[in-house]
Protein backbone atom coordinates (compact mmCIF):
# COMPACT_ATOMS: atom_id res chain seq x y z
CA UNK A 1 0.00 0.00 0.00
CA UNK A 2 1.26 3.46 -0.88
CA UNK A 3 2.29 5.43 2.20
CA UNK A 4 2.35 9.21 1.95
CA UNK A 5 4.48 11.20 4.35
CA UNK A 6 1.61 13.35 5.59
CA UNK A 7 -2.15 13.40 5.70
CA UNK A 8 -3.60 15.41 2.83
CA UNK A 9 -6.80 17.35 2.23
CA UNK A 10 -8.58 16.17 -0.92
CA UNK A 11 -11.45 17.74 -2.82
CA UNK A 12 -13.49 15.49 -5.11
CA UNK A 13 -15.60 17.33 -7.67
CA UNK A 14 -17.78 14.70 -9.30
CA UNK A 15 -21.48 14.63 -10.22
CA UNK A 16 -21.85 10.85 -10.01
CA UNK A 17 -22.53 9.72 -6.44
CA UNK A 18 -21.16 6.19 -6.97
CA UNK A 19 -17.89 7.51 -8.43
CA UNK A 20 -17.59 9.99 -5.56
CA UNK A 21 -18.09 7.23 -3.02
CA UNK A 22 -15.53 4.97 -4.72
CA UNK A 23 -12.86 7.65 -5.03
CA UNK A 24 -13.53 8.93 -1.52
CA UNK A 25 -12.94 5.42 -0.15
CA UNK A 26 -9.67 5.13 -2.04
CA UNK A 27 -8.44 8.52 -0.85
CA UNK A 28 -9.54 8.51 2.77
CA UNK A 29 -6.62 6.29 3.82
CA UNK A 30 -4.37 9.23 2.84
CA UNK A 31 -6.28 12.08 4.49
CA UNK A 32 -9.49 14.06 4.70
CA UNK A 33 -11.89 14.02 1.76
CA UNK A 34 -14.36 16.78 0.86
CA UNK A 35 -16.90 16.50 -1.94
CA UNK A 36 -18.78 18.69 -4.40
CA UNK A 37 -21.07 17.74 -7.27
CA UNK A 38 -21.33 21.05 -9.16
CA UNK A 39 -18.95 23.82 -10.13
CA UNK A 40 -20.43 26.49 -7.87
CA UNK A 41 -20.12 24.54 -4.64
CA UNK A 42 -16.66 23.41 -5.77
CA UNK A 43 -15.50 27.02 -6.24
CA UNK A 44 -16.97 27.94 -2.84
CA UNK A 45 -15.08 25.10 -1.17
CA UNK A 46 -11.85 26.03 -2.98
CA UNK A 47 -12.16 29.63 -1.79
CA UNK A 48 -12.98 28.71 1.79
CA UNK A 49 -10.82 25.66 2.43
CA UNK A 50 -7.22 24.53 2.31
CA UNK A 51 -6.81 21.62 -0.07
CA UNK A 52 -3.74 19.81 -1.33
CA UNK A 53 -5.29 18.04 -4.30
CA UNK A 54 -8.52 18.39 -6.30
CA UNK A 55 -9.89 15.51 -8.37
CA UNK A 56 -12.10 17.11 -10.99
CA UNK A 57 -14.63 15.44 -13.27
CA UNK A 58 -15.24 17.55 -16.37
CA UNK A 59 -18.99 16.94 -16.66
CA UNK A 60 -20.82 18.13 -13.58
CA UNK A 61 -24.39 18.51 -12.35
CA UNK A 62 -24.62 22.09 -13.63
CA UNK A 63 -23.39 21.28 -17.10
CA UNK A 64 -21.03 19.38 -19.38
CA UNK A 65 -17.38 20.51 -19.27
CA UNK A 66 -18.12 22.75 -16.27
CA UNK A 67 -15.19 21.06 -14.56
CA UNK A 68 -12.81 22.89 -16.91
CA UNK A 69 -13.82 26.14 -15.18
CA UNK A 70 -12.61 24.82 -11.82
CA UNK A 71 -9.06 23.91 -12.86
CA UNK A 72 -7.61 27.43 -12.98
CA UNK A 73 -9.11 28.67 -9.66
CA UNK A 74 -7.83 25.49 -7.98
CA UNK A 75 -4.34 25.88 -9.47
CA UNK A 76 -4.25 29.56 -8.45
CA UNK A 77 -4.95 28.54 -4.84
CA UNK A 78 -1.95 26.23 -4.95
CA UNK A 79 -4.08 23.09 -5.20
CA UNK A 80 -2.80 20.23 -7.36
CA UNK A 81 -5.60 19.69 -9.92
CA UNK A 82 -6.14 16.21 -11.36
CA UNK A 83 -8.80 15.62 -13.99
CA UNK A 84 -10.75 12.36 -13.93
CA UNK A 85 -12.89 12.07 -16.99
CA UNK A 86 -14.29 9.67 -19.55
CA UNK A 87 -13.51 12.22 -22.25
CA UNK A 88 -10.59 11.20 -24.41
CA UNK A 89 -10.73 13.97 -27.04
CA UNK A 90 -7.30 15.58 -27.52
CA UNK A 91 -8.85 19.07 -27.51
CA UNK A 92 -10.40 18.47 -24.13
CA UNK A 93 -7.21 17.05 -22.61
CA UNK A 94 -5.15 19.91 -24.04
CA UNK A 95 -7.52 22.53 -22.65
CA UNK A 96 -7.40 20.91 -19.22
CA UNK A 97 -3.59 20.98 -19.22
CA UNK A 98 -3.52 24.58 -20.48
CA UNK A 99 -5.75 25.58 -17.59
CA UNK A 100 -3.30 24.12 -15.11
CA UNK A 101 -4.28 20.47 -14.68
CA UNK A 102 -1.31 18.38 -13.51
CA UNK A 103 -2.58 14.92 -14.41
CA UNK A 104 -5.40 13.71 -16.63
CA UNK A 105 -6.73 10.23 -15.83
CA UNK A 106 -9.21 8.60 -18.18
CA UNK A 107 -12.04 6.68 -16.50
CA UNK A 108 -12.15 3.93 -15.48
CA UNK A 109 -8.82 4.34 -13.72
CA UNK A 110 -7.37 1.74 -11.39
CA UNK A 111 -5.78 2.08 -7.96
CA UNK A 112 -2.28 1.87 -9.48
CA UNK A 113 -2.90 4.97 -11.63
CA UNK A 114 -4.26 6.80 -8.62
CA UNK A 115 -1.25 5.78 -6.50
CA UNK A 116 1.04 7.01 -9.27
CA UNK A 117 -0.61 10.43 -9.19
CA UNK A 118 -0.42 10.57 -5.38
CA UNK A 119 3.24 9.56 -5.47
CA UNK A 120 3.98 12.25 -8.08
CA UNK A 121 2.23 14.86 -5.98
CA UNK A 122 4.11 13.75 -2.89
CA UNK A 123 7.40 14.06 -4.76
CA UNK A 124 6.63 17.46 -6.27
CA UNK A 125 5.44 18.78 -2.94
CA UNK A 126 8.52 17.37 -1.29
CA UNK A 127 10.94 18.83 -3.85
CA UNK A 128 12.76 20.23 -0.87
CA UNK A 129 13.20 16.64 0.30
CA UNK A 130 15.01 15.65 -2.88
CA UNK A 131 17.09 18.81 -2.65
CA UNK A 132 17.81 18.05 0.99
CA UNK A 133 18.77 14.49 0.09
CA UNK A 134 21.24 15.81 -2.46
CA UNK A 135 22.58 18.32 0.01
CA UNK A 136 22.99 15.93 2.92
CA UNK A 137 23.00 12.38 1.50
CA UNK A 138 24.84 12.80 -1.75
CA UNK A 139 27.01 15.89 -1.70
CA UNK A 140 27.61 17.49 -5.06
CA UNK A 141 27.47 20.86 -6.72
CA UNK A 142 28.54 19.47 -10.08
CA UNK A 143 25.96 20.67 -12.57
CA UNK A 144 26.29 17.69 -14.93
CA UNK A 145 25.97 15.20 -12.07
CA UNK A 146 22.96 17.00 -10.60
CA UNK A 147 21.33 16.88 -14.04
CA UNK A 148 22.11 13.14 -14.14
CA UNK A 149 20.57 12.64 -10.70
CA UNK A 150 17.41 14.52 -11.63
CA UNK A 151 16.26 11.29 -13.27
CA UNK A 152 15.45 10.19 -9.70
CA UNK A 153 12.29 12.33 -10.02
CA UNK A 154 11.07 9.93 -12.70
CA UNK A 155 12.46 6.79 -11.09
CA UNK A 156 10.31 7.14 -7.97
CA UNK A 157 7.13 7.39 -10.04
CA UNK A 158 7.21 3.85 -11.41
CA UNK A 159 8.77 0.47 -10.83
CA UNK A 160 11.12 0.26 -13.83
CA UNK A 161 14.62 -1.11 -13.12
CA UNK A 162 17.52 1.18 -12.39
CA UNK A 163 21.13 0.60 -13.44
CA UNK A 164 23.85 2.66 -11.77
CA UNK A 165 27.25 2.95 -13.40
CA UNK A 166 30.28 4.45 -11.70
CA UNK A 167 33.82 3.75 -10.59
CA UNK A 168 34.38 2.20 -7.20
CA UNK A 169 33.68 4.47 -4.24
CA UNK A 170 31.43 6.92 -6.10
CA UNK A 171 28.43 6.09 -3.92
CA UNK A 172 26.43 3.66 -6.07
CA UNK A 173 25.00 1.86 -3.02
CA UNK A 174 24.25 5.20 -1.43
CA UNK A 175 22.23 6.32 -4.45
CA UNK A 176 20.39 2.98 -4.56
CA UNK A 177 19.46 3.37 -0.90
CA UNK A 178 18.46 7.00 -1.40
CA UNK A 179 16.09 5.97 -4.22
CA UNK A 180 14.56 3.32 -1.97
CA UNK A 181 14.14 5.78 0.91
CA UNK A 182 12.53 8.36 -1.38
CA UNK A 183 9.97 5.78 -2.47
CA UNK A 184 9.28 4.00 0.79
CA UNK A 185 10.19 6.68 3.33
CA UNK A 186 12.47 4.29 5.28
CA UNK A 187 15.15 1.67 4.69
CA UNK A 188 12.99 -1.35 5.50
CA UNK A 189 12.95 -3.91 2.68
CA UNK A 190 16.11 -2.53 1.10
CA UNK A 191 17.91 -5.77 0.39
CA UNK A 192 21.45 -5.41 -0.90
CA UNK A 193 23.79 -8.05 -2.25
CA UNK A 194 27.29 -7.42 -3.54
CA UNK A 195 27.75 -10.13 -6.18
CA UNK A 196 31.54 -9.81 -6.07
CA UNK A 197 31.77 -10.45 -2.33
CA UNK A 198 30.09 -13.86 -2.35
CA UNK A 199 31.88 -16.95 -3.72
CA UNK A 200 30.28 -18.12 -6.99
CA UNK A 201 29.00 -21.37 -5.48
CA UNK A 202 27.21 -19.53 -2.65
CA UNK A 203 25.74 -16.72 -4.73
CA UNK A 204 22.86 -18.83 -6.01
CA UNK A 205 21.74 -19.86 -2.53
CA UNK A 206 22.11 -16.28 -1.26
CA UNK A 207 19.92 -15.00 -4.08
CA UNK A 208 17.28 -17.70 -4.30
CA UNK A 209 17.42 -19.23 -0.82
CA UNK A 210 17.26 -22.94 -0.13
CA UNK A 211 15.25 -25.69 1.50
CA UNK A 212 16.53 -27.80 4.36
CA UNK A 213 18.69 -30.60 2.96
CA UNK A 214 19.09 -28.95 -0.46
CA UNK A 215 22.84 -29.52 -0.21
CA UNK A 216 25.23 -30.78 2.41
CA UNK A 217 25.34 -28.23 5.19
CA UNK A 218 21.82 -26.93 4.54
CA UNK A 219 20.55 -27.86 7.99
CA UNK A 220 17.59 -25.52 7.83
CA UNK A 221 15.73 -23.59 5.16
CA UNK A 222 16.84 -20.05 4.39
CA UNK A 223 15.09 -17.28 2.50
CA UNK A 224 17.02 -15.76 -0.38
CA UNK A 225 17.52 -12.07 -1.10
CA UNK A 226 14.91 -12.21 -3.87
CA UNK A 227 12.25 -13.36 -1.43
CA UNK A 228 13.32 -10.92 1.28
CA UNK A 229 13.02 -8.03 -1.18
CA UNK A 230 9.32 -8.73 -1.81
CA UNK A 231 7.53 -5.38 -1.69
CA UNK A 232 10.80 -3.44 -1.63
CA UNK A 233 14.09 -3.03 -3.47
CA UNK A 234 16.64 -5.65 -4.44
CA UNK A 235 20.00 -3.95 -4.93
CA UNK A 236 22.54 -6.06 -6.81
CA UNK A 237 25.94 -4.41 -6.61
CA UNK A 238 28.73 -5.41 -9.01
CA UNK A 239 26.23 -7.36 -11.10
CA UNK A 240 28.83 -7.79 -13.87
CA UNK A 241 30.62 -10.36 -11.71
CA UNK A 242 27.63 -12.70 -11.64
CA UNK A 243 28.32 -16.06 -13.36
CA UNK A 244 26.58 -16.52 -16.73
CA UNK A 245 24.52 -19.53 -15.60
CA UNK A 246 23.15 -17.62 -12.66
CA UNK A 247 22.42 -14.63 -14.89
CA UNK A 248 20.00 -16.85 -16.83
CA UNK A 249 18.21 -17.94 -13.67
CA UNK A 250 18.03 -14.34 -12.42
CA UNK A 251 16.58 -13.18 -15.73
CA UNK A 252 13.76 -15.71 -15.41
CA UNK A 253 13.08 -14.64 -11.83
CA UNK A 254 12.97 -10.96 -12.81
CA UNK A 255 10.66 -11.58 -15.76
CA UNK A 256 8.25 -13.93 -14.03
CA UNK A 257 8.58 -12.51 -10.50
CA UNK A 258 8.61 -16.15 -9.47
CA UNK A 259 11.48 -18.54 -8.72
CA UNK A 260 12.32 -21.82 -7.04
CA UNK A 261 14.61 -21.82 -3.98
CA UNK A 262 17.33 -24.49 -4.15
CA UNK A 263 15.94 -27.94 -3.38
CA UNK A 264 12.35 -26.69 -3.44
CA UNK A 265 9.55 -27.81 -5.71
CA UNK A 266 7.34 -24.98 -4.56
CA UNK A 267 7.66 -21.70 -6.43
CA UNK A 268 7.99 -18.43 -4.51
CA UNK A 269 6.52 -15.14 -5.71
CA UNK A 270 8.34 -11.91 -5.09
CA UNK A 271 7.54 -8.45 -6.36
CA UNK A 272 10.62 -6.27 -6.05
CA UNK A 273 12.13 -3.20 -7.64
CA UNK A 274 15.51 -4.11 -9.10
CA UNK A 275 18.38 -1.66 -8.78
CA UNK A 276 21.71 -2.89 -10.15
CA UNK A 277 25.13 -1.30 -10.12
CA UNK A 278 28.44 -1.91 -11.78
CA UNK A 279 31.79 -0.26 -12.32
CA UNK A 280 32.28 -2.23 -15.55
CA UNK A 281 31.32 -1.30 -19.09
CA UNK A 282 28.40 -3.73 -19.39
CA UNK A 283 27.93 -3.12 -23.11
CA UNK A 284 31.55 -4.14 -23.73
CA UNK A 285 31.03 -7.25 -21.58
CA UNK A 286 27.92 -8.10 -23.60
CA UNK A 287 29.93 -7.70 -26.82
CA UNK A 288 32.58 -10.06 -25.43
CA UNK A 289 29.92 -12.59 -24.41
CA UNK A 290 30.73 -12.18 -20.73
CA UNK A 291 27.36 -10.74 -19.77
CA UNK A 292 24.00 -11.89 -21.10
CA UNK A 293 22.49 -9.40 -23.53
CA UNK A 294 18.91 -10.31 -22.54
CA UNK A 295 19.70 -9.65 -18.87
CA UNK A 296 21.38 -6.38 -19.75
CA UNK A 297 18.24 -5.16 -21.52
CA UNK A 298 16.14 -6.38 -18.60
CA UNK A 299 18.07 -4.62 -15.85
CA UNK A 300 18.57 -1.32 -17.61
CA UNK A 301 15.74 1.13 -17.60
CA UNK A 302 16.79 4.25 -15.89
CA UNK A 303 20.57 4.54 -16.11
CA UNK A 304 22.57 6.75 -13.77
CA UNK A 305 26.22 7.51 -14.44
CA UNK A 306 28.17 8.62 -11.38
CA UNK A 307 31.33 10.54 -12.17
CA UNK A 308 34.64 9.96 -10.43
CA UNK A 309 35.85 12.64 -8.01
CA UNK A 310 38.67 13.46 -10.44
CA UNK A 311 36.01 14.67 -12.87
CA UNK A 312 34.24 16.82 -10.28
CA UNK A 313 37.03 18.41 -8.32
CA UNK A 314 34.74 21.22 -7.18
CA UNK A 315 33.02 18.71 -4.87
CA UNK A 316 36.20 17.75 -2.98
CA UNK A 317 36.14 20.72 -0.58
CA UNK A 318 32.40 20.26 0.00
CA UNK A 319 32.82 16.59 0.77
CA UNK A 320 35.71 17.24 3.14
CA UNK A 321 33.57 19.79 4.98
CA UNK A 322 30.66 17.33 5.05
CA UNK A 323 32.73 14.46 6.47
CA UNK A 324 34.44 16.75 8.99
CA UNK A 325 31.04 17.73 10.38
CA UNK A 326 30.34 14.08 11.18
CA UNK A 327 32.92 14.05 13.94
CA UNK A 328 32.50 15.81 17.26
CA UNK A 329 36.19 16.70 17.33
CA UNK A 330 36.78 19.52 14.86
CA UNK A 331 40.10 20.18 13.13
CA UNK A 332 41.17 22.95 10.77
CA UNK A 333 42.39 22.26 7.25
CA UNK A 334 44.30 25.33 6.05
CA UNK A 335 44.20 26.50 2.43
CA UNK A 336 47.57 24.99 1.42
CA UNK A 337 46.54 21.53 2.68
CA UNK A 338 43.13 21.87 1.04
CA UNK A 339 44.84 22.79 -2.21
CA UNK A 340 46.88 19.58 -2.11
CA UNK A 341 43.77 17.53 -1.31
CA UNK A 342 41.94 19.16 -4.20
CA UNK A 343 44.85 18.44 -6.51
CA UNK A 344 44.83 14.70 -5.77
CA UNK A 345 42.99 12.35 -8.16
CA UNK A 346 41.26 10.22 -5.49
CA UNK A 347 41.22 6.89 -7.36
CA UNK A 348 39.18 5.39 -4.52
CA UNK A 349 36.77 8.32 -4.90
CA UNK A 350 34.43 9.30 -2.04
CA UNK A 351 35.31 6.19 0.00
CA UNK A 352 39.02 7.09 -0.07
CA UNK A 353 38.31 10.76 0.68
CA UNK A 354 36.15 9.85 3.67
CA UNK A 355 38.85 7.56 5.05
CA UNK A 356 41.42 10.30 4.62
CA UNK A 357 39.27 12.88 6.45
CA UNK A 358 38.67 10.42 9.29
CA UNK A 359 42.41 9.81 9.50
CA UNK A 360 43.13 13.58 9.60
CA UNK A 361 40.53 14.07 12.31
CA UNK A 362 42.27 11.51 14.48
CA UNK A 363 45.57 13.44 14.32
CA UNK A 364 46.61 14.94 17.60
CA UNK A 365 47.14 18.41 16.10
CA UNK A 366 44.05 20.58 15.73
CA UNK A 367 45.44 22.37 12.69
CA UNK A 368 46.36 19.96 9.90
CA UNK A 369 49.62 20.60 8.09
CA UNK A 370 51.03 19.14 4.89
CA UNK A 371 53.13 16.78 7.02
CA UNK A 372 49.95 15.14 8.30
CA UNK A 373 48.83 14.09 4.81
CA UNK A 374 49.45 10.52 3.64
CA UNK A 375 52.56 10.19 1.49
CA UNK A 376 50.70 8.86 -1.55
CA UNK A 377 48.53 12.01 -1.60
CA UNK A 378 51.49 14.36 -1.22
CA UNK A 379 53.42 12.59 -3.98
CA UNK A 380 50.55 12.29 -6.43
CA UNK A 381 48.73 15.57 -5.91
CA UNK A 382 48.86 18.18 -8.64
CA UNK A 383 47.65 21.34 -6.96
CA UNK A 384 46.99 24.50 -8.95
CA UNK A 385 49.95 26.79 -9.36
CA UNK A 386 48.28 29.44 -7.29
CA UNK A 387 46.64 28.30 -4.13
CA UNK A 388 42.88 28.42 -4.67
CA UNK A 389 42.29 28.66 -0.96
CA UNK A 390 44.61 31.62 -0.57
CA UNK A 391 43.04 33.32 -3.55
CA UNK A 392 39.60 32.77 -2.12
CA UNK A 393 40.71 34.20 1.19
CA UNK A 394 42.20 37.31 -0.41
CA UNK A 395 39.12 37.96 -2.51
CA UNK A 396 36.76 37.48 0.46
CA UNK A 397 38.89 39.77 2.53
CA UNK A 398 38.67 42.61 0.02
CA UNK A 399 34.92 42.33 -0.37
CA UNK A 400 34.34 42.35 3.36
CA UNK A 401 36.71 45.29 3.69
CA UNK A 402 34.84 47.35 1.12
CA UNK A 403 31.36 46.46 2.27
CA UNK A 404 31.60 46.52 6.03
CA UNK A 405 34.87 48.23 6.89
CA UNK A 406 36.63 50.25 4.21
CA UNK A 407 39.94 50.37 6.02
CA UNK A 408 42.00 48.29 8.38
CA UNK A 409 45.28 49.32 9.79
CA UNK A 410 46.31 46.74 12.39
CA UNK A 411 47.11 43.97 9.88
CA UNK A 412 44.47 41.69 11.37
CA UNK A 413 41.98 39.84 9.18
CA UNK A 414 39.23 41.65 11.05
CA UNK A 415 39.32 45.44 10.98
CA UNK A 416 38.75 47.68 14.01
CA UNK A 417 35.47 48.85 12.56
CA UNK A 418 34.37 45.25 12.22
CA UNK A 419 35.40 44.57 15.81
CA UNK A 420 33.24 47.53 16.89
CA UNK A 421 30.37 46.11 14.86
CA UNK A 422 30.80 42.74 16.62
CA UNK A 423 30.98 44.48 20.01
CA UNK A 424 27.70 46.32 19.27
CA UNK A 425 25.76 43.56 17.54
CA UNK A 426 27.40 40.28 18.50
CA UNK A 427 29.47 37.80 16.50
CA UNK A 428 26.42 35.95 15.18
CA UNK A 429 24.99 39.11 13.61
CA UNK A 430 28.40 39.89 12.07
CA UNK A 431 28.71 36.40 10.56
CA UNK A 432 25.15 36.55 9.28
CA UNK A 433 25.85 39.93 7.71
CA UNK A 434 28.87 38.53 5.90
CA UNK A 435 26.86 35.51 4.77
CA UNK A 436 24.07 37.75 3.49
CA UNK A 437 26.38 40.11 1.65
CA UNK A 438 28.50 37.38 0.13
CA UNK A 439 25.56 35.28 -1.07
CA UNK A 440 23.89 38.38 -2.47
CA UNK A 441 27.12 39.52 -4.15
CA UNK A 442 28.09 36.19 -5.74
CA UNK A 443 24.51 35.32 -6.66
CA UNK A 444 24.20 38.57 -8.61
CA UNK A 445 27.71 38.20 -10.06
CA UNK A 446 26.74 34.74 -11.34
CA UNK A 447 23.59 36.12 -13.04
CA UNK A 448 21.44 34.49 -10.33
CA UNK A 449 22.66 30.99 -11.18
CA UNK A 450 22.43 28.95 -7.99
CA UNK A 451 24.86 26.16 -8.85
CA UNK A 452 27.67 28.49 -9.90
CA UNK A 453 27.14 30.52 -6.73
CA UNK A 454 27.28 27.39 -4.59
CA UNK A 455 30.44 26.18 -6.32
CA UNK A 456 32.14 29.52 -5.84
CA UNK A 457 31.11 29.94 -2.20
CA UNK A 458 31.64 26.23 -1.43
CA UNK A 459 28.51 26.08 0.66
CA UNK A 460 25.73 23.51 0.65
CA UNK A 461 22.28 23.90 -0.89
CA UNK A 462 20.66 24.05 2.52
CA UNK A 463 22.98 26.84 3.71
CA UNK A 464 22.34 28.80 0.53
CA UNK A 465 18.56 28.58 0.82
CA UNK A 466 18.70 29.36 4.53
CA UNK A 467 20.57 32.59 3.77
CA UNK A 468 18.32 33.42 0.81
CA UNK A 469 15.23 32.96 3.00
CA UNK A 470 16.79 35.39 5.48
CA UNK A 471 17.53 37.91 2.72
CA UNK A 472 13.95 37.64 1.44
CA UNK A 473 12.56 38.10 4.95
CA UNK A 474 14.77 41.16 5.44
CA UNK A 475 13.70 42.56 2.07
CA UNK A 476 10.06 42.22 3.13
CA UNK A 477 10.77 43.98 6.38
CA UNK A 478 10.27 40.83 8.48
CA UNK A 479 12.46 39.85 11.34
CA UNK A 480 14.70 36.98 10.33
CA UNK A 481 13.92 33.78 12.26
Amino acid sequence: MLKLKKQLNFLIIEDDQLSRLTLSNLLKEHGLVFEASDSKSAIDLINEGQFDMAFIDLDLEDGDLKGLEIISPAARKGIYPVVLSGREEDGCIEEAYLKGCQDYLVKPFNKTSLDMVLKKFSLIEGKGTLRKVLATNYITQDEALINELEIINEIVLNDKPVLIFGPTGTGKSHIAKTIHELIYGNDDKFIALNCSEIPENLLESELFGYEKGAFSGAEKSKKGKLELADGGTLFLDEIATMPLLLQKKLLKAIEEKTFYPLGSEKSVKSNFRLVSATCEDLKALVAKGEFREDLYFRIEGYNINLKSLAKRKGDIALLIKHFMKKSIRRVVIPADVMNVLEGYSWPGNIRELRKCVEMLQSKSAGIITLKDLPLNILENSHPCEESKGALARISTESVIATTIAPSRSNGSFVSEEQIRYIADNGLKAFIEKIEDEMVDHFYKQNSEKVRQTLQQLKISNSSFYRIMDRLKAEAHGQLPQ
Partner: protein
Amino acid sequence: MKDQSKLIHDINSGLSSISQAIELIDNDKGNTELLSQVTPLALEKITQVLADWEELKNHIRE
Protein backbone atom coordinates in the same frame (compact mmCIF):
# COMPACT_ATOMS: atom_id res chain seq x y z
CA MET B 1 -34.35 12.61 -25.06
CA LYS B 2 -30.57 12.46 -24.97
CA ASP B 3 -28.62 12.71 -28.20
CA GLN B 4 -26.45 9.82 -29.37
CA SER B 5 -23.11 11.19 -28.23
CA LYS B 6 -24.51 12.06 -24.79
CA LEU B 7 -25.90 8.53 -24.48
CA ILE B 8 -22.53 6.99 -25.39
CA HIS B 9 -20.79 9.26 -22.93
CA ASP B 10 -23.23 8.42 -20.12
CA ILE B 11 -23.02 4.67 -20.77
CA ASN B 12 -19.23 4.81 -20.78
CA SER B 13 -19.18 6.89 -17.63
CA GLY B 14 -21.75 4.62 -15.92
CA LEU B 15 -19.83 1.45 -16.79
CA SER B 16 -16.59 2.93 -15.52
CA SER B 17 -18.26 3.98 -12.29
CA ILE B 18 -19.72 0.46 -11.81
CA SER B 19 -16.43 -1.29 -12.60
CA GLN B 20 -14.52 0.87 -10.13
CA ALA B 21 -17.12 0.25 -7.45
CA ILE B 22 -16.85 -3.52 -8.04
CA GLU B 23 -13.05 -3.31 -7.78
CA LEU B 24 -13.35 -1.36 -4.54
CA ILE B 25 -15.70 -3.94 -2.98
CA ASP B 26 -13.54 -6.78 -4.27
CA ASN B 27 -10.48 -5.32 -2.58
CA ASP B 28 -12.27 -4.87 0.74
CA LYS B 29 -14.48 -7.95 0.90
CA GLY B 30 -15.19 -7.92 4.63
CA ASN B 31 -16.36 -4.30 4.68
CA THR B 32 -20.13 -4.69 5.03
CA GLU B 33 -20.70 -0.99 5.66
CA LEU B 34 -19.04 -0.13 2.35
CA LEU B 35 -21.06 -2.85 0.64
CA SER B 36 -24.32 -1.44 2.00
CA GLN B 37 -23.37 2.03 0.76
CA VAL B 38 -22.23 0.93 -2.69
CA THR B 39 -24.87 -1.67 -3.59
CA PRO B 40 -27.97 0.61 -3.93
CA LEU B 41 -25.96 3.20 -5.85
CA ALA B 42 -24.48 0.54 -8.12
CA LEU B 43 -27.95 -0.98 -8.79
CA GLU B 44 -29.31 2.47 -9.60
CA LYS B 45 -26.40 3.05 -11.97
CA ILE B 46 -26.88 -0.34 -13.65
CA THR B 47 -30.56 0.48 -14.24
CA GLN B 48 -29.59 3.84 -15.70
CA VAL B 49 -26.97 2.28 -17.99
CA LEU B 50 -29.47 -0.32 -19.21
CA ALA B 51 -32.05 2.40 -19.93
CA ASP B 52 -29.44 4.43 -21.82
CA TRP B 53 -28.40 1.35 -23.74
CA GLU B 54 -32.04 0.67 -24.80
CA GLU B 55 -32.37 4.28 -25.91
CA LEU B 56 -29.12 4.08 -27.85
CA LYS B 57 -30.32 0.90 -29.57
CA ASN B 58 -33.41 2.81 -30.70
CA HIS B 59 -31.19 5.58 -32.07
CA ILE B 60 -29.14 3.00 -33.97
CA ARG B 61 -32.28 1.30 -35.35
CA GLU B 62 -33.60 4.65 -36.58
